[in-house]
């Protein structure tokens, strides 16, 4: 995303630049020179590992063993072959990731948007509240995982204890039954990360010109109508960005289920990243893990493109 927005003004100014002697056009290396520090990091830490991952995925790769036989596309074939022993756990993980993403993304968009709208109003204690909503985000996944694991414990947890006090069912197995485990994971993730999305929405809200609201009011628009016709369109670029990074972050969920449910019940909440980490870093089946990562990456790329088009089409339709 960041790349796209950065490029647009650059190419625009290049078009307008006068063809003066000594301009960047005559010395193409100058641009490369300025880009070099970033490119070096990009190649070493992003492009290199991606390509190495592709290479590893074509081998039976255990970095501890001297023999790393080339197996071609067999790792991929195994992951896609229902008869193989990796098929079940991997697709179970993909399914878990899918369920989590589908369940968490709507909340991670709607709740932070609502909070951003409130925080955009002027009222006493606003700054304190902004800080409070953002606070959980600064905690690490290990902290929030352990915290909620104890709070949500079926038998000795505070949540069930409090539910019992107000005569609600107090025996919900929040961490080891379905769908309660998903409710817990989604709830904890929303509680943990909503601050981040809210801050971005808030920044987006503050970028919407006041005059548009005034104009809407002059035209007789109520609160709901200004929200629909001014706020939402004004937030469109921000919403697209937040949607994409939220989908990607949700699809990469690992720590919460690793710590809170450990995949229970059975392997139901074992996500794709959980499976990949286990294969690659515990079993040292790095070939399989790399192949699985590639399948997950491709899926996410397709999804991102889809989101991009959904938002873009509507934009053009309106324009």
């Amino acid at each position, binding site marked *: 995303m960041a790349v796209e927005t950065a490029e647009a003004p650059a190419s625009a100014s290049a078009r307008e630049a006068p063809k003066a002697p000594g301009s960047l056009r005559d010395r193409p290396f100058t641009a490369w020179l300025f880009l070099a520090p970033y490119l070096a990091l990009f190649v070493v830490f992003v492009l290199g590992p991606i390509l190495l991952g592709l290479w590893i995925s074509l081998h*039976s790769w*255990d*970095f*501890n*063993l*001297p*023999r790393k036989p080339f197996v071609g596309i067999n790792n991929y074939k195994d992951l896609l072959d229902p008869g193989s*022993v990796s098929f*079940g*756990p991997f697709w179970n993980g993909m399914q878990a990731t899918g369920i989590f993403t589908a369940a968490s993304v709507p909340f991670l968009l709607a709740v932070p948007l609502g909070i951003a709208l409130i925080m955009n109003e002027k009222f006493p204690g606003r700054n304190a509240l902004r800080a409070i909503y953002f606070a959980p985000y600064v905690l690490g996944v290990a902290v929030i995982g352990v915290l909620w*694991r104890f709070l*949500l*414990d*079926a*038998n*000795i*947890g505070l949540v069930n204890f409090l539910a019992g006090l107000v005569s609600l069912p107090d*025996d919900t*197995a929040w*961490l*080891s*039954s379905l769908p309660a485990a998903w409710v817990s994971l989604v709830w904890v993730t929303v509680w943990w990360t909503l601050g981040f999305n809210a801050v971005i929405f808030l920044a987006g809200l503050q970028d919407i010109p006041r005059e548009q609201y005034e104009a809407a009011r002059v035209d007789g628009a109520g609160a709901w109508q200004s929200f629909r016709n001014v706020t939402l369109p004004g937030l469109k670029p921000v919403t697209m960005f937040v949607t994409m990074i939220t989908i990607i972050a949700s699809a990469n969920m690992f720590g919460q289920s690793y710590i809170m449910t*450990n*995949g*229970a*019940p*059975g*392997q139901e909440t074992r996500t794709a990243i959980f499976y990949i980490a*286990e294969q690659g*870093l*515990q*079993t*040292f089946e790095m070939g399989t893990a790399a192949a699985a990562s590639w399948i997950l990456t491709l899926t996410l790329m397709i999804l991102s493109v889809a989101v991009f088009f959904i938002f873009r089409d509507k934009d053009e339709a309106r324009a």
Partner: protein
Amino acid sequence: MSPTPRPTVQSTVPSALTRRRFLGLSALTTAALVTGCGGGQGVGGNEEGVGGFTGEYDGPALTLAYWNGFTGGDGPAMIDLVKSFNEEQEDITVESNPISWPDFYQRLPAATQAGKGPDVGAMHLDQLSTNAARNIIVAVDDVAEALELEEGDFAPAVWQPGIYNEKRYGIPLDVHCLAMYYNKDHFEKAGIDEPPADAASFDEACKKLQGAGYDTPFWMPNLWPAHIMFLSILWQSGGEPYAEDGSEATFASEEGVAALTWMLEQIEKGYSPPNVDADAQYLAFKNNKTSITWDGIWQINDLQATDMNYGIAPLPVIGNEIGSWANSHNFFLTSQAAGDQDRSDASKVFIAWMSEQSAQWSKAGMIPALNSAREEAAFKESPQYALLEQIDKLHFLPAVPGLGEVTPVTLETAVNKALLGQESPEEALSAAQEDATELMQKNLEKYGG
């Protein structure tokens, strides 16, 4: 690696006790040398660690990196041991680096491959073969020879699994197993005089406890340590989870199904609430909310630190005879240290010294692996002495490379599913057994070829 022994003329070790000890050891140089030369043929390209260990170190002063996973109640005891070693030695300083076990097994291979690993360390018995096959650790036959250690010196069954491809990779420090912890106050109130020792008396005890107002006296975990409880009962019944040669999984046998069914029954009978989450059974026990729990003896120090009135006893016989799952902490030498004669010798001095401290290690809540150490007061006065009867009937997982990674994704999941009522014990175990066998076959190919 040169097998040339270093001259052993003078000892720079200051302590008289240590000096005597090591001078005695150096008499065994010849024996060590024989092993050193004899073991020349590497298996699977393994680097040889057998470098004619002399029992003492007279090279330049150096600092050894020592990695272990003693981060729990056993941590302080290990820190004390390392401290006394450092005080006794002039030229060797050991720097202990405790890392929780799961991280330990992830980091050790990567760090060792990168040349940033430890020289020496302690790991579980069932991980030795995996790390030997991966060329992370090297054989230490010469240390065993120099210390005159033999199978008969140790608790039964702890010696063999340390051997992989006919070489010894670990020097056992302790054995640890499961125990039954019980709340003495609850037992007294329920009128139970002694800890139950078989299935019938266990059931009776649970009923009495319920009668005394303890509604859920025995919480059944479905995550750790559920699968080692399962393994214990399986072994008690004469079953085996895995074939000794690593060719197949056999835990879905009749005995296995019976073991898991018994565990499930504890929930069905209401002795345990359903859906016991991670660690809840132990926390409930510590807080007097349940009366009996089965857990590892490594929890002893944690319970000692409370003012709880608890008792400890061998696991009751649910199968046919007394027995428990067990594991053992073993000292190892890394391939990284084996590349340097000085570091390798110094590490071996450390291993040899530690192995002699087996009795002191009882303070960590563990059972000394050496038979002689179990005669010492340090062990006899420890709480875990109550498990003496069980020590002759411990069961270890076979030395099969890669097995440690098969269990979590197969057996542990099956136990979890069955105890959460998602699948019957038969279904869960047979599906997991099939997967486990397939993974084990893959491992045979991976590590064998």
